[in-house]
């Protein structure tokens, strides 16, 4: 019964918001949805359930949804606090449309994570693109228009390629065979290997476009920098996970058919390509929100490598997914606070945060420490685990490359982060009401707590997810 609630709650609230057109009410509706969503996901985590034959909970779905629920709640609470007393005169209809699109976006991601059917998965990933397009266009500026156009267009091409992949997969199947992932995996051996291998690159590139893998990441920095920061946080911390989940679910079919090595190689190459692209752009990026977007490409690359390696690498990737979502959510929300007061997106124009608003400045720096993989944050443990997995799998050269690229990325990013934090105070902004920081602090705290005090059930759960999603047949 929980699953239909998770679908119909956002739909009901979205319709309500659209009809009422009252921004003051929207704050409460979003908060209500976020709390309801978290409660529903918590329920599902404790009690596996299924609905209508097309939706069911499995550990990977619960993980992606739990991260979605936590980040969404943080975004909703932050919005609730920051929009207090804000007026939207003349923009009520647009504001309600934004709220409606946000709820449908969350609903589509939830459905994409929960579905157990290949075609349904495609439909809902497509739905996330359509629902999030108006969110990226939120500010209605010329640059937002450019970002939205690129987002819709590139993701539409990507999703069409994923569709071709699914069709090619169907060509290799017996007529009338079911498209449920469970059946696909069970009958993987009966699928014609030619079509199976032909289909996977299309699926990797198609869903990989949404997951932010290089070289099909072009929409990502634009969309992340132009969207309101709460939306950037959701795109980065939740949408990318959902798309990655889609790639891995199809990868599992090949894995079950005995072509794990093929999937492993594809994922590891994609991962390193993403790291490389992130490293190159990190050195020249001049906009701090775009800098965070390139960091997302980097982290998706790390996850791709981990899941591709399987075994311990997959456990590292699961932990990294958790670490990245929590920290990147906090990072984007803080970037939004800086943008809100400084009104500048470029690194050079946004100096002096630490001196002007010490608390926001410290959260900003802490988020950087957390994303760079320094202890005691979760990313430290996941990256160490991944490095040892690389070594164990017999890739010392790749390990060296990994360390080199990571160093370049941290150096490039550190430069930008420090330039924003340091510098003379801006007394003209000191009087500006500082935005709420505790949603970010909680996210960062969770990124420490999850590893420092990991309860046994959570550890078992992570291992379950890794065992399902990782490429098991890819071991030498």
């Amino acid at each position, binding site marked *: 019964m929980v699953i239909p609630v998770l679908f119909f709650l956002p739909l009901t609230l979205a319709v309500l918001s659209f009809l009422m057109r009252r921004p003051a009410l929207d704050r409460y509706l979003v908060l209500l949805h976020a709390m309801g969503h978290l409660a529903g996901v918590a329920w599902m985590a404790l009690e596996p359930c299924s609905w209508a034959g097309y939706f069911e909970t499995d550990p990977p779905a619960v993980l992606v949804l739990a991260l979605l629920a936590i980040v969404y709640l943080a975004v909703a609470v932050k919005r609730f606090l920051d929009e207090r007393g804000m007026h939207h005169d003349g923009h009520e209809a647009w504001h309600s449309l934004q709220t409606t699109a946000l709820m449908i976006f969350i609903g589509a991601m939830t459905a994409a994570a929960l579905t157990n059917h290949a075609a349904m998965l495609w439909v809902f990933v497509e739905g996330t693109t359509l629902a999030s397009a108006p969110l990226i266009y939120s500010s209605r500026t010329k640059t937002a228009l450019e970002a939205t156009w*690129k987002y*819709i267009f590139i993701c539409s091409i990507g999703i*069409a390629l994923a569709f*071709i992949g699914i069709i090619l997969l169907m*060509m290799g*199947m017996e*007529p009338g065979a079911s498209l449920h992932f469970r059946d696909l995996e069970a009958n993987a051996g009966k699928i014609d290997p030619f079509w199976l291998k032909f289909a996977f690159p299309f699926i990797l590139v198609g869903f990989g476009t949404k997951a932010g893998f290089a070289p099909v990441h072009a929409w990502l920095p634009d969309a992340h920098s132009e969207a309101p920061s709460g939306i950037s946080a959701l795109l980065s911390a939740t949408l990318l996970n959902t798309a990655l989940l889609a790639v891995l679910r199809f990868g599992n079919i090949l894995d079950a058919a005995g072509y794990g090595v093929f999937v492993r190689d594809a994922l590891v190459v994609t991962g390193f390509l993403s790291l490389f692209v992130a490293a190159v*752009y990190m050195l*020249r990026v001049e*906009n701090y929100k775009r800098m965070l977007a390139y960091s997302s490409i980097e982290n998706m690359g790390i996850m791709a490598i981990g899941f591709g390696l399987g075994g311990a690498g997959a456990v590292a990737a699961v932990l990294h997914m958790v670490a990245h979502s929590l920290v990147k959510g906090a990072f984007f929300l803080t970037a939004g606070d800086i943008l809100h007061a400084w009104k500048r997106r470029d690194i050079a124009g946004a100096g002096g945060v630490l001196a002007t608003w010490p608390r926001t400045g410290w959260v900003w720096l802490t988020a950087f420490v957390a994303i760079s993989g320094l202890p005691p944050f979760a990313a430290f443990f996941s990256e160490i685990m991944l490095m040892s997995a690389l070594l164990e799998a017999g890739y010392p050269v790749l390990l060296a490359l990994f360390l080199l690229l990571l160093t370049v990325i941290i150096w490039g990013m550190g430069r930008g982060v420090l330039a924003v934090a340091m510098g003379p105070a801006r007394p003209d902004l000191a009087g500006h009401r500082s935005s709420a920081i505790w949603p970010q602090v909680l996210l960062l705290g969770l990124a420490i707590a999850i590893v420092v005090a990991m309860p046994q059930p959570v550890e078992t759960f992570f291992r379950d997810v890794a065992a399902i999603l990782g490429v098991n047949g890819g071991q030498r």
Partner: protein
Amino acid sequence: MVGEFVIIMIGATMLAISFTSRIHAVIRALSIQGLLLFVLVLDDAHAFDTINLVFLIIETLVVKAVVIPLFLQRIIVRNHIYREIEPYIPNFYSLLVASIILGGGFLLEHLSRGVTSGTKPLALGVSLAVIVTALFLIISRKKLITHVLGFLAMENGVFMLTMAVAREHTFAVNVGLLLDVFLAVFLLGLFMNRIASSYEEMSVDELSDLKD
């Protein structure tokens, strides 16, 4: 026999699209593709049950051949888009590349003849050629409207591909496909109206404010 002829005709329309420099000619070619796909559906009519058949006929004859072309015409008139297509490379080379891709499609047909069981190799080869040609046309043209047109040609290729696979999933697959085409074109059209009011010329060269 009719089916194979139609499939090759669809491949030929892509050559025409790659060679023309007029937007209206491309829209007309897309409309013709819709009609050809309709004939393709009719040729296979016995394979579908009534609901699927009605749905497929509406999708091809109404949506692809009439509604979307009319919608595009309206966007063009409303936004005063010039008629020239403005490619990055001369039309002749476009035609050359499109021909090579189509040739590759026939080669794929030849190669996959032994591998495929139950699927039509010709439909597979040509539809993949249509998709790749459409992608090529998208990257070699400047105007945003031609990108949308390329996207539609690509979706027509995907439609052909779906016609070549198992009948059992036709309905679900086509609902998804129609959703994709309809909403994407609608959204893109909506944003194109906005772009027309913010940018002087509607070409990708202008969408360069966001970069590193």
